[in-house]
């Protein structure tokens, strides 16, 4: 099943000459690891319909959840116990983080993309304004952002190795280091040495969205470009850790496929990786495709706010020490409540366009997606304080 609204003629055409999405391209280095097999096996065997309320209560009683408990927390039956789950998630969050909420903002430095992902605003067949900030412009943007008081920045590019190569991103990291304490990356997947290089330039956190862990579905959504190669993307976090990054972030775009399976796979992926690399810091992002309004019947794959909260709480209870970021795709009401329950990171003063933080930059690029929470850094800061949460600009030191 696929959400038909994202299909068009162009997509149909591509469907005929596709490459094997499980095969690496020549420039992609293979690392020795069995994590993907383990995750795929676990997801295949994850049957969320077999859980009962008993399994959910059992999970809620434990201090540390097993993958089996995590599966129960993500099950349809658990949705009926969402209040209890949220209560427990809140306690666990406070135990690990106190009332600290970390603030950051993304900076989009380029939106060129070589991939054809049929659901994404940046995809190479969309006729949008493309732009790439030059070094001076990056500096201006970062300076403007740092003046809002933020200490953490997330550098984003579209996925084009040609237009935004590793050196270019490295230069952006070096500039970021002058203005910020914490530098994260959300860029196309790299080889281990490339991650090591960007780590040397100042970055320490890498987030890669697998989008969906259902390889068959993945293949129908990512029609061309290097992103089409499923396993290379899957192993990005492990390569980043091997390259010396301190932490890695995971995320499925909930609603692309069966969100329960995708959320289970995301959590399990992080769990296995942290077991293998116990020092790695783990983070989750929780973007969702909103259910289509006026959809005449309720689809089991739809991710409403309740389902989103269920996923966020399940991540929290399964991986209590991980950071959870709540996207600006969500409105202020949802975000403020999520950080009161289980999320620990919130962006503020967000623009997903290029060059939007500085007026004098004229070569602005279009936005990747529309945001629902347009509050400034100060507005989010004040709102956290009002809700008895402590905004934290940095809890990190680059060593």
């Amino acid at each position, binding site marked *: 099943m696929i959400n038909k609204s994202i299909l068009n003629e162009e997509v149909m055409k591509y469907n005929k000459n596709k490459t094997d999405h499980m095969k690496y391209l020549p420039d992609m280095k293979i690392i020795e690891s069995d994590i993907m097999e383990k995750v795929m096996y676990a997801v295949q065997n994850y049957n969320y319909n077999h859980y009962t309320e008993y399994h959910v209560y059992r999970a809620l009683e434990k201090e540390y959840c097993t993958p089996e408990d995590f599966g129960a927390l993500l099950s349809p039956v658990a949705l009926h116990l969402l209040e209890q789950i949220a209560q427990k998630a809140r306690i666990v969050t406070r135990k690990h983080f*106190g*009332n600290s909420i970390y603030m950051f903002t993304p900076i989009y430095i380029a939106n060129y993309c070589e991939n054809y992902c049929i659901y994404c605003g940046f995809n190479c067949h969309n006729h949008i304004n493309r732009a790439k900030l030059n070094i001076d412009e990056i500096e201006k943007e970062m300076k403007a952002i740092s003046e809002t008081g933020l200490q953490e920045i997330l550098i984003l590019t579209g996925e084009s190795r040609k237009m935004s190569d590793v050196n270019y991103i490295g230069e952006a990291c070096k500039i970021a280091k002058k203005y910020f304490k914490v530098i994260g990356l959300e860029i196309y997947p790299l080889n281990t040495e490339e991650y090591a290089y960007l780590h040397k330039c100042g970055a320490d956190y890498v987030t890669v969205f697998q989008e969906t862990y259902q390889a068959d579905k993945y293949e129908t959504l990512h029609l061309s470009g290097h992103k089409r190669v499923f396993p290379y993307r899957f192993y990005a976090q492990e390569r980043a850790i091997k390259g010396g990054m301190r932490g890695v972030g995971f995320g499925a775009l909930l609603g692309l496929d069966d969100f329960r399976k995708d959320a289970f796979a995301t959590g399990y992926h992080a769990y296995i990786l942290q077991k293998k690399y116990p020092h790695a810091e783990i983070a989750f992002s929780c973007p969702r495709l909103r259910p289509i309004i006026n959809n005449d019947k309720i689809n089991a794959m739809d991710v409403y706010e309740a389902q989103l909260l269920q996923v966020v709480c399940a991540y929290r209870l399964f991986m209590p020490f991980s950071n959870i970021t709540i996207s600006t795709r969500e409105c202020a009401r949802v975000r403020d409540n999520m950080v009161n329950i289980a999320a620990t990171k919130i962006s503020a003063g967000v623009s997903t366009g290029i060059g939007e933080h500085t007026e004098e930059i004229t070569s602005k690029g279009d936005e990747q997606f529309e945001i629902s929470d347009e509050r400034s850094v100060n507005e989010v800061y004040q709102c956290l304080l009002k809700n008895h949460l402590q905004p934290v600009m940095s*809890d990190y030191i680059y060593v």
Partner: protein
Amino acid sequence: MDKFILGGKEFDSRFILGSGKFSLELVKACIEKAGAQIITLALRRTNEGGIANILDYIPKNVTLLPNTSGARNAEEAVRIARLSREITKSNFVKLEVIRDSKYLLPDNYETIKATEILAKEGFVVMPYMYPDLNVARDLINAGAACVMPLGAPIGSNKGLCTKDFIQILIDEIDLPIIVDAGIGRPSQACEAMEMGAAAVMANTAIATAGDVSAMAEAFKKAIESGRTAYLSGIGMTISKGASASSPLTGFLHDDTDK
């Protein structure tokens, strides 16, 4: 007067307060209610010249104890300690070396290595460790100013899970033993002090309390009470069978060789 001496400084309070996990605006009131003279802070949380900088919220008359949280090995800990000395102008360092993001258990081996380097550089090294007697001895030989065994995993509020092993350290190690991590209630802090711990460090127990500064005060009282009890000598427990009807030493009165 019963003074707590550490790194050449004298303190009246034996309560080391952690500053993480709660609102910055509560820090000052909390220190006052706790009567704390030493407060830990994570260097990585400082934001000099920026907003929400924890250093702006700590009164100047309190001894800062920067910790090396974020360090995953000895080398990183040493670098963070040096940076923290520059920023806080304090020679004190609470050494934390953790390479486990799930339980946050200390790496004793790397901690010994870092202690040796930092002690040579003149730091007052206060190493956080898993209570192991051999490691404690190595830490002393490496130049530590005290030993800080965990009672339970950080933030767990579980109390003195490692009680018997902490007692061994108290009995065998001549330097102050400061129980750090895991203390969840004033009664547990009191118990650690009764056992002979030189001081107690707590953070999450207070940060996650309903009323943060009231809980800080409760801890202060518990720690003082435990200390007084320790100094006065704990009363004997008379257990059943302790005074047997046919004494084992009765034969000594049979006066055969008198």
